[in-house]
């Protein structure tokens, strides 16, 4: 794609929003704190939404059960990190990472494995039918949540952040939590890998084609079934990763956490436009910023800021900022 064709307007939204609110906030240090925190929050939201950009955005599967994989990842992390107290207790980030990285890997593996079963028994019969997808994945979500309660109990479980990842960094008066910076790093990696896979490799194309016409993709000689399973598993694994990140951010996990973030990540995808990773990132960043700004300026309205943002975007571009043509 050449530069001239590139649609830069949505990209400009993020800095535009940040600049526009500056006069209202007044103090630059406050603004800086809010902006950096908002962007970092956006990155975290992007991580938890990234799995859904694949499953919902590319495969067109309205997976209401996606949240369960997020919760699952977080709960697995409590078990893994709980067993690695020596590493989490250290003041050194590197040592901490020796615990957090395995936790991420295990969470992704578990979520991916469950995703495999989920695809086989829940999603496979309903490809292409949104209503049935809603129903059956809702059922899947309820079952998943209850099973989490059976395994880990219905209680809230603390997931303390490893010692070295706590605290804030100060830039003059402005402050930013260390953990948010870590999340930004993870988010950038996830974004990069996704973007590369989807736009630079044939896999992305195949998935999108498979959603439109399975039979034709098979007639071209590709094993779409395997591909779909693969994508679903990766989507679930990403949700698991998101769960670890989210859980560590909250520092506690509850079985209902999946359902709680569901609406949020759906909004992100709608703003971004189905199937667009870049769109999802922009959507997540906008939401992160917007909720911080409104939270500061008009806290009462914070509740509706996501919806208002979504409505405004849809009025501008009814398909989301980066929609696939249709």
């Amino acid at each position, binding site marked *: 794609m050449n530069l001239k064709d590139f649609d830069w307007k949505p990209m400009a939204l993020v800095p535009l929003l940040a600049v526009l609110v500056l006069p209202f906030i007044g103090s630059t240090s406050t603004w800086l704190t809010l902006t950096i925190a908002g962007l970092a929050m956006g990155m975290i939201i992007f991580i938890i939404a990234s799995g859904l950009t694949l499953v919902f955005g590319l495969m067109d599967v309205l997976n209401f059960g996606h949240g369960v994989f997020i919760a699952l990842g977080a709960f697995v992390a409590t078990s893994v990190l709980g067993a690695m107290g020596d590493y989490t207790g250290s003041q050194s980030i590197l040592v901490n990472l020796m615990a957090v990285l395995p936790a991420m890997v295990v969470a992704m593996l578990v979520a991916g494995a469950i995703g495999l079963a989920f695809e086989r028994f829940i999603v496979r019969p309903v490809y292409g039918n949104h209503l049935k997808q809603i129903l059956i994945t809702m059922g899947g979500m309820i079952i998943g949540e209850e099973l989490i309660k059976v395994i880990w109990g219905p209680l809230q479980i603390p997931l303390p952040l490893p010692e070295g990842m*706590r605290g804030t960094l100060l830039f003059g008066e402005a402050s930013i939590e260390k953990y948010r910076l870590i999340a930004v790093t993870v988010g950038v990696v996830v974004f990069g890998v996704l973007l590369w896979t989807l736009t630079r490799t044939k896999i992305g194309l195949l998935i999108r084609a498979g959603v439109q016409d399975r039979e034709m993709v098979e007639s071209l000689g590709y094993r779409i079934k395997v591909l779909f399973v693969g994508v679903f598993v990766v989507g679930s694994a990403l949700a698991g990763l998101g769960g670890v990140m989210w859980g560590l951010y909250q520092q506690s996990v509850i079985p209902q956490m999946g359902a709680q973030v569901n609406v949020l990540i759906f909004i992100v995808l709608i703003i971004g436009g189905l199937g667009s990773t870049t769109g999802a990132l922009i959507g997540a960043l906008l939401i992160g910023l917007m909720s911080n700004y409104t939270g500061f300026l008009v806290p009462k309205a914070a509740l509706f800021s996501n919806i208002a943002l979504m409505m405004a975007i849809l009025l501008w571009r009814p398909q989301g900022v980066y929609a696939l043509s249709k």
Partner: protein
Amino acid sequence: QAGKDIRIAHIYSRTGPLEAYGKQTQTGLMMGLEYATNGTMTVSGRKIVVIEKDDQGKPDLGKSLLQQAYADDKVDLAIGPTSSGVALAMLPVAEEYKKVLLVEPAVADSITGERWNKYIFRTGRSSSQDAISNATAVDQPGTVIATLGQDYAFGRDGVKAFKDAVKKAKIIHEEYLPQNTTDFTAGFQRIIDKLKDAPGQRKVIWVIWAGATPPFAKLAEQDLKKRFNIDVATGGNILPAMVPYNNFPGMEGASYYYFGFSKNQPNLWLVTNHYTRFKSPPDFFTAGGMSAAMAVVAALKKTNADTATDKLISAMEGMSFDTPKGMMTFRKEDHQAMQSMYHFRVAPGARPGAMADLHLVKEIKPNEMDVPIKVKR
């Protein structure tokens, strides 16, 4: 009547968002009955039978379960529920059926306030009791306070009661955030902007928060003590929810219950037996459940196991009874149990992530708290 079972309904959140709380109450209730009847489960020859019902945290369901309990199951009295919303929906049912409802542990003030009727008793603490005890813990001259609560009735009422009880300190800001807030940056920033330059020797953020994602971990990240010399204070909670308190060694507040505070006979029994049976200390609502059981047994002993509603009511009004928290007394005017609260301090060497380690500063006795009577009679 003698020889017939005494039937008690316990309606609570066996499932739903408050599942964890409800189950503690049930455990406490059964242990309390056991303790109060010396393991016989009988009072004056009548056996006590507890019928459990799950309100799932839904007021409409709770209401119809209470109707069923009174009408279909013919219970003599009912205990519960876990959530205030459910309790408020239940109150008129007790009046309709003219049967006693012993509220435990729902906290809303209006249960023993505007919405009260004479069939309602409460062993649980009220929001006011919570707030007043918390105020006692931080209320000093020269202190400036910003409150941080959730933007719904529980948060706003709590802050209001707290404000009413604070006499010497100055409250300069009230911050309300949506109930399920996850990103606290904006709210904190508003509080910091208000508090950092406020005149006063001591600056405190008083937090009242119920639910899954409390702001403590995030507050701790902010390093407020070091940056702006701001302290954090808050009330007690169930043990898992208090884990983040360890981020604030030395933080003060007031709590309804912590297993290590009370040294009386029932509490010692409760702690020991809970440890042997469940490998964990009793919690907030376990103590509450036990208190309710002990209140019921005390009342039944007084009426000689006569369960006629008017007999029960007159026995309970003004009745004092022992609980794991010491003696409680049902106040005549609004049937609220007057009880001690505990001013606590988080252990100075507390380790983040570990179980909350609270030290007792002072037991706040019932007569030290001026809990207003809000019933309209």
